[in-house]
């Protein structure tokens, strides 16, 4: 299997599947079957990459290069390192479970799966692209289907949310294009190859301002406070599978891009803006948690909790030390899985009870014990309770934080307490008590709908109890960046 261009398979299999669905995918059964096959292929390849990535050799692996627009130095170049590999795993899992969650989509299933698969291609593409132009190409490819998916299959204020999301992301993209072109001219090597870019040393002023562009551009996606308001609205409006990918993976595209095109290229720029980033990160954590606390819609609670949790990623990155960076990447993975699980669960409850109002849901524990137990696992990860993946991530971030800025650590800890408060309050309300009217018809899902929740919960616990391999991979991925930070 060594000769196989496995990364290209991951990135392009969903597109191929989308085309296939367009050609022959009639009815309800066929599109979802094809999508599931594509999901299985991607997940299998991601797992294969996970096990075959040579952790002793480190660096970029499975590289494949095909010239694309040679006159501009643009190439189709893919490869993975220790940061991409966990992201591929994350996307593989979220995508596979996302397809399963959408198993019962009734409304135009064919178009739904086509768009979903295009979105998946975009996300996978970003994670494997090693050419800045290619990365940007895939990035935009992920945004467009998102708009349609929310605007057509969404709920609550879907047009507004879809539009808001798209405008924010395109505004971010505009900053990114400028940054990219500036870097391209500055390097002057007639190439978009990010490894070549990374080897270049940029002048200090250039670093300062272009890093800011990158921070704003990708920050809109992370989402960085105060550019975050699109994100909860988007989560809420989107259909379940899209919420899962949106919160689970799309937000990570921002952080991933910031690492690739911000921190790796401009260590000096990071130093210049670290304090601002750290403060904004702390605001994200606390502010997001506070906003989540006063929400009445379950999806909004989780939407704002994403804002809060992504704050740890920003905090970790801004610390620019080993634990901070490792914790940030770990948190990207951990949050992706936990939030996907949350949305899968809420999607299921909403589908059956037709309400997401916390006030109208209670007594899930009695009606659907398995769903309730899974809720507890997701909440435990979200609160950063030990033996879940969330704990390892938060611990790493805090170790990074406490060494550099105990004050910020203390501020962020307020966020932890508030997080525990809103989650336990929500859980107590919806799980305990007598089953409410809306909850009455609920039963535990049948196996194919249970499977995604099972996979996600299992991942949370598995990574939480045995974080070794994941941590090791991330450590290898972060190492070159650390060296650059130390040198720059």
């Amino acid at each position: 299997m060594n000769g196989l261009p496995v990364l290209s398979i991951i990135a392009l299999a969903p597109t191929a599947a989308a085309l296939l669905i367009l050609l022959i995918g009639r009815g309800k059964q066929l599109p979802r079957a094809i999508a599931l096959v594509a999901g299985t292929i991607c997940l299998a390849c991601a797992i294969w990459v996970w096990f075959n990535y040579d952790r002793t050799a480190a660096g970029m692996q499975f590289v494949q290069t095909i010239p694309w627009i040679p006159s501009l130095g643009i190439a189709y170049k893919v490869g993975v390192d220790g940061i991409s590999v966990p992201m591929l795993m994350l996307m593989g899992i979220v995508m596979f479970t996302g397809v399963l969650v959408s198993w019962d989509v009734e409304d135009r299933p064919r178009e739904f799966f086509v768009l979903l698969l295009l979105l998946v291609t975009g996300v996978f593409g970003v994670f494997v692209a090693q050419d800045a132009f290619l990365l940007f190409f895939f990035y935009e490819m992920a945004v467009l289907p998102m708009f349609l998916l929310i605007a057509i299959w969404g709920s609550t204020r879907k047009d507004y949310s879809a539009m808001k999301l798209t405008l924010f992301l395109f505004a971010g993209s505009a900053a990114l294009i400028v940054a990219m072109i500036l870097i391209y001219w500055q390097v002057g090597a007639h190439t978009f190859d990010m490894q070549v870019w990374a080897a270049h040393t940029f002048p200090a002023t250039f670093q300062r301002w272009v890093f800011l562009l990158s921070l704003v551009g990708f920050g809109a996606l992370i989402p960085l406070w105060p550019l975050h308001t699109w994100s909860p609205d988007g989560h809420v409006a989107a259909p379940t599978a899209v919420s899962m990918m949106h919160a689970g993976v799309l937000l990570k595209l921002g952080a991933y891009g910031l690492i690739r095109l911000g921190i790796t290229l401009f260590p000096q720029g990071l130093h210049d803006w670290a304090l601002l980033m750290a403060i904004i990160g702390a605001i994200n954590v606390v502010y997001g948690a506070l906003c989540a606390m006063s929400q009445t819609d379950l999806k909004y609670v989780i939407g704002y909790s994403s804002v809060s949790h992504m704050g740890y990623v920003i905090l970790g990155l801004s610390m620019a030390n080993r634990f901070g960076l490792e914790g940030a990447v770990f948190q990207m993975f951990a949050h992706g899985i936990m939030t996907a699980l949350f949305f899968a669960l809420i999607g299921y409850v909403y589908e059956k009870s037709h309400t997401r109002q916390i006030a109208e849901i209670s007594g899930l524990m009695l009606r659907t014990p398995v769903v309730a137990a899974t809720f507890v696992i997701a909440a435990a990860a979200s609160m950063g309770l030990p033996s879940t993946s969330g704990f390892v991530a938060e611990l790493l971030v805090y170790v990074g934080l406490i060494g550099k800025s105990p004050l910020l650590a203390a501020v962020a800890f307020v966020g932890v307490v508030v997080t525990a408060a809103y989650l336990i309050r929500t859980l107590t309300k919806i799980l305990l008590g007598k089953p409410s009217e809306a909850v009455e018809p609920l039963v535990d899902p049948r196996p194919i709908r249970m499977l995604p929740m099972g996979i996600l919960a299992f991942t949370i616990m598995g990574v939480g109890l045995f974080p070794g391999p994941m941590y090791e991979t991330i450590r290898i991925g972060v190492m070159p960046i650390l060296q650059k930070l130390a040198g720059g």
Partner: protein
Amino acid sequence: MSLLSYAWLLPVIPLVVFAIVLATGRKLPEKVVYSLGIGAMAVVFAGSLVALWQTSHGLELNTSFKWLSFGANTFNFGMLVDPLTATMLIVVSFVSLLVQLYSIGYMHGDERIRWFYGAINLFSAAMLGVVLANNWLLMYMCWEVMGLASYLLIGFWYQNADAPPAAMKAFLVTRFGDVGFGLALALMYFNFHTFNFTSVFLMTEMGAVNPTVIAAIALLFFAGAMGKSAQFPLHVWLPDAMAGPTPGSALIHAATMVAAGVYLVARSFPLYEAVPWTLLVVGTIGTITAVMGALIALAQHDIKKVLAYSTISQLGYMFLALGTGSWVAAIFHLMTHAFFKALLFMAAGSVIHGSGTQDLHEMGGLAKKMPWTTATWVLGALSLAGIPPLAGFWSKDEILLSALHSGNYWFLGFGLFTALLTAFYMGRATFLAFFVKPGPDSKASHAHESPWVMTAPLATLAVLAVTAGLIGSPLAGYAFGNFMGEHEAAEPSYLLMAIAIGVAVAGISLAWGSYIKRFFEPDGYFKSWFVTGPLSHKFWIDEVYHHGVVRPVNAIAEGARTADSAVIDAIVRAFGWVGLKISALLAVFDRKGVDGAFDAFGDGVSETGNTVRKIQNGNVQTYLLFMVAAIVVLVAVFAR
């Protein structure tokens, strides 16, 4: 040694039981479930006895296995079995065993009894994990699982209106303390690069780490302990936690989990010793809690609430002991307290089971109806009040002695004062429930004795509540202290012993005088401002939290949400609005200027089109005719 290396099985066995219960749901018959639970705990108890026996022969276990390469060092998880751990193992497994036995009777007929056993086993596994861990990280992991299990058990009867909020409160308040624990872990890792007990103590001893950092870590650990062990001001969750089933309260909220904080501080004791002023903090908080808990207990009507505040007070006592520098005395009291308080809770459960009420004023005269319960309760109460030679006397004496020797007479004085209050409120509860003549609201007439599955564990615990103290007494040559590794026993002070006995007797006599002989009018006492004011309002601490924390946080959260939609979103919308206006302006220009020119041009084109279109009559043959004609013309012109 060989047997000790199987110690990891101890927490795994109840965990497996939990997993089985979780996986099978309602499929297993009730009998199978509780036999499983009890059988498993019996095995664990046997294992704990082996561990005790082995450690008493000087064997210890400290093994590790790699969990994670964390930073530069590999990070290990492992087990530590030493005398302290062995003692805790015995306490936990024994109380858990008896509680599960007792629950057969108490929980009989509850449709979710399987889940109850599942949660109890989950809790036991976590607690065993806490005491077996050889590092703080593993301990923290089990610690949080323990909190989760406690949440589940408090919220067990979630149909009742008070259970869900109580569960939530318990989780939140303890979580608040645990945040300190977590911060301590981060701080520790950053400074020590390990979580292992032995390594950290070694580095502390060598002075490798700044004492300020050590103090910070120690105090943060103590914050975690305060949450779990319900110390002032984080004690508010424990009384509410009584909403759960009584056997669960006996195990978790009286005997074991709440004592985990004491264990944590005792286990981390070298850190505190390195910076002695931290011990003063611990002792002060403990003293405040001890006095406050005992005072509030005076004014409670609910038999479980009396016990809950008594637990808070006694836990404060243990921290007082830690504060005087004697962790052995604290653990000794932890052990005896576990036995007699579990006994009292289970006896209270038996009373509730038999009489159907929790209110002391609706009881009375139960002694005749429930002889076994009464007898065991009285033994437990005497033990708690500190009457020799019962267990509570010896352990309390150790603490007072340690306070005396430490020279901190504040601790000693308040300790004695608490002992007086304790004797009084226990006397009050005992007389009101069992001995006074039933009042008009009494439900005692229907009361009946509980089945033997409930009374047998009571009797067993009663034996321990009487005898367990002897092993740490001067009579047995301070066997307990020696076992723990404290070789020079403190000089016993017979004067202090006499004073302690006098105080206990005084307290009980006062209660006897008030409630049986009516020398004093209890009604008058209950109308005094001190009782109706601070005591029955629990010093307004709940209110302070409500107005000082809960409401402001909610208000801030509400504010943040409003800000999010009103300010930030408004700015976003303002940008959109400005954009729209600009585009509208441009649109006007477009229509009048650019469009005007285009329109003129377009009109011309369309006029021409209108004239020419008539040729297009839709008949194919006409078109062909034009074509042929055109070809003929072209040929004529070009083919010369």
